[in-house]
């Protein structure tokens, strides 16, 4: 079972965990990615996330399906924010429920690592004295 979402409004963790918990799954691994207040020594004012939504959702579904094929996991949830976020805000939540913990950890880490490589979402870091699209330049 998968739950994939791009959201322009605040992500909340508890409903994601409630969705994943069941008496079948003894191990649940959750990754939360938040906006840090500093990057490379510079103070972050805000981040602006933009997504190619239809493709982002389809790439996130691929990641979830691949993870379910590679590891014995029951449920995978991937929620990602778009819009303007300030330090402390949640940018991404990934939840993986499995019978045993090893599969949950492996699949969760695979999901976030792959998301950062393949899902068409972009973030612009806005500093006090400038701004930059992350990873755009060599």
């Amino acid at each position, binding site marked *: 079972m998968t739950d994939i979402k791009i959201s322009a409004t605040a992500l909340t963790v508890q409903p994601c965990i409630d969705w994943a918990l069941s008496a079948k799954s003894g191990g649940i691994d959750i990754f939360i*990615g938040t906006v840090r207040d500093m990057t490379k020594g510079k103070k972050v004012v805000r981040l602006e*996330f*933009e*997504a*190619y939504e*239809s*493709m*982002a959702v*389809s790439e996130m579904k691929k990641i979830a399906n691949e993870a379910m094929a590679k590891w014995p996991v029951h449920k995978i949830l991937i929620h*990602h924010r778009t819009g303007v976020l300030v330090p402390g805000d949640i*940018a*991404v939540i990934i939840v993986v429920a499995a019978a045993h913990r090893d599969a949950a950890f492996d699949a969760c880490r695979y999901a*976030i690592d792959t*998301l*950062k*490589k*393949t*899902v*068409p*979402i*972009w*973030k*612009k870091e806005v500093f006090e004295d400038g701004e930059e*699209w*992350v*990873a*755009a*330049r*060599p």
Partner: protein
Amino acid sequence: MKVLAFGIVKEIMGGASVAVDANISVAALQASLEQQYPRLKQLSAFMIAVNGEYAGPDVIVKPGDEVAIIPPVSGG
């Protein structure tokens, strides 16, 4: 036909979509875009998606396809 632009590419092109010729390969489309917008060459790379899937250089872009320019992603 139109191609969609996102992130830094949208800024380079000055808009969310631009018009290009159809019935060319993805590789030819990339070359044509770089000629039209030389600042694209300053990116670490950019991919082309056709109908929501990453497309290899030999794929032919047809009228009616949803074509998008994908600069290096940075979600998460």
